[in-house]
């Protein structure tokens, strides 16, 4: 489980570099780059920081990953979590950040 960074979408703002709890994201040639992808905890802090949607999250095959990616898009109080399958189909789950979990 780790993240991947879509380099052309990265604007080099360093927000992800700053926030990663493992100091794993570095800026190389002005673009974010994940150093040691195996050391990612999967907290998704970087996805939430990224304003251009350049960072996506995936599960390693060793824990059941099959190539889908998870991305985040925030609009106001709503956080949209989008799962995109390798075939390109998507499913979106929207969480209202001002509402509590039910469980």
């Amino acid at each position, binding site marked *: 489980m780790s993240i991947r960074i879509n380099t052309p979408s990265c604007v080099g703002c360093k927000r992800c570099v700053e926030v990663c*709890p493992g*100091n794993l994201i570095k800026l190389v040639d002005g673009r974010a780059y994940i150093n040691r992808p195996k*050391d990612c905890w*999967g907290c998704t802090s970087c996805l939430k920081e990224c304003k251009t949607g350049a960072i996506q*999250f995936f599960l390693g095959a060793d824990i059941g990953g099959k190539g889908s990616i998870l991305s985040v898009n925030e609009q106001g109080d709503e956080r949209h979590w989008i799962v995109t399958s390798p075939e390109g189909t998507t499913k979106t789950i929207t969480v209202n950040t001002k509402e509590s*979990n039910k*469980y």
Partner: protein
Amino acid sequence: MEKELQVEIKNTDVLIIGGGTAGCYAAYTLGITGEHKVLIVEKANIKRSGCLAAGVNAINAYITEGRVPQDYVDYCKQDAKGIVREDLLLSISENLNEVTHTLEDNGLVILKDENGKYVTRGNRNIKINGENIKPILAKMAQDSENVSVINHVNITDLLVKNNRVQGAVGFDVNESKAYVFYAGAVLVATGGAAGLYRPNNPGFSRHKMWYPPFNTGAGYAMGIKAGAEMTTLEMRFIALRCKDTIAPTGTIAQGVRAKQMNGLGEIYETKYGVATCERVYGTTEENRQGHGPCYLKTDEISPQQEDELYKAYLNMAPSQTLKWLEGGQGPAEQNVEIEGTEPYIVGGHTASGYWVDNNRATTVQGLYAAGDVAGGAPQKYVTGALAEGKLAALSIADYLKNDLSPESDDSWKNIISEYNQFLNNVNTNISIEQLEEAMQKIMDEYAGGITKGYQYNETGLNLAEEKIKGLYDVLSALEAKNTDELLQIYEIKERLDLSLSLIAHLRARKETRWHSFGENMSYPEVNKDYEAYINSVLENGQLKIIKRPLVVDDYEPLVFSFNHDGALLYAGGEL
């Protein structure tokens, strides 16, 4: 060419090592009076560092209506089979609700019913949206004018003279720079330790673990080296988690009341007892007897409940929701497989950590500990760590009235020359990664890891000790190309230091009081002689075990005393 880190010296009244749950709340507390200059030094960035990075699903320690703080103390004591500090637990419990309300005032969303009352989940929990709990806490800490933060600096060593803390030493993880911090008082709030044992997913997803893989026991290691007393390290914490993603199970177990079920379809929920350690043990035993795999039985929940679970997991462990969606079957169609994690050392869940008094003072004068790094008080969870942050901050403010200025000398130079040595080493065929694997393999095989069903015995522990000691020579030859690699080396070094103390503790408790957490096969029964704390302190390079009487029932809160030179006079009775 010799590589040498630049050195910057900084002075502060209060140094907080680690800007996580406890550290941020301590800074916030010291910010209210604004009297002292406070500096948080954090190895990542306080906005999303520590246990709360991804969020948390519930407040698990809250005194719900009709209950009193002593009820919470009694629950913790029972769950830990008596080995707790009642003084610490009570002072935490008395503050749980206040810190919760303060967080709510600062923006934490808590679920309320139509009468405006918190909706509870069981007897001690309330429901929240905890995704943004860490940014809220970080802001609370930073909003005070007297609090400043240095992110991305990793502290490795405390400066201690005549048993009185003077400050600490660390390095910038991105730049070629070292820091010496002098402080009147130091709060260690670095969290607990993951990664001592081989993890559930040792391959690509090696860091998909319950506890933050970046919490590598720095606080314990610096305390052990500085001669601070540690307690109950042998009460390891093993979490029962969703298989593969190592996501929490409480949300399912308590949220939709899913029961633990074995591979034969039998519910084993209460067969082995209901204490936290017994829930793990039950699952381990069912597997050992050939009745696995084990599950949480969720296949009767409704599609609406499933949707709510998807959202709840996105707010704390997004990998689990992704796994459900990617696999094509959610929990309403397929029971959730569960497994125990590798053992962690974490004082927010068990009683492992610094031996502290009721003021959260350690046995080193001027050094305080709070949160996961502090021992004696299990089941702190988030709010308990906040409460300890508050209590430590108030004690520190009181201590600083003594006006004990730190004494500067050049003892920091040895620490920085050790950093420089790693930066100037020439690469050998042993890598940092190999050494981590070697350590985790030894601990797994000889000190009761996953592959041994969490069981260990004296012969194995002796071998573990010998083999861990053997890794130090390899470690000292490692090369750090930059301070990022230096961080990785220190993250192994501190785990080796902690492992040696842990092994000594596991060996010293000659009984099995807690299944799985401390399954000593050389002594598989409970022994009344061990209704005591097992503590340890490093003296002249040797770990000394101290057995201390329990602070329970008709207890007096423990308060340490020091003489005017800083020497420790009293830190509890001895058996």
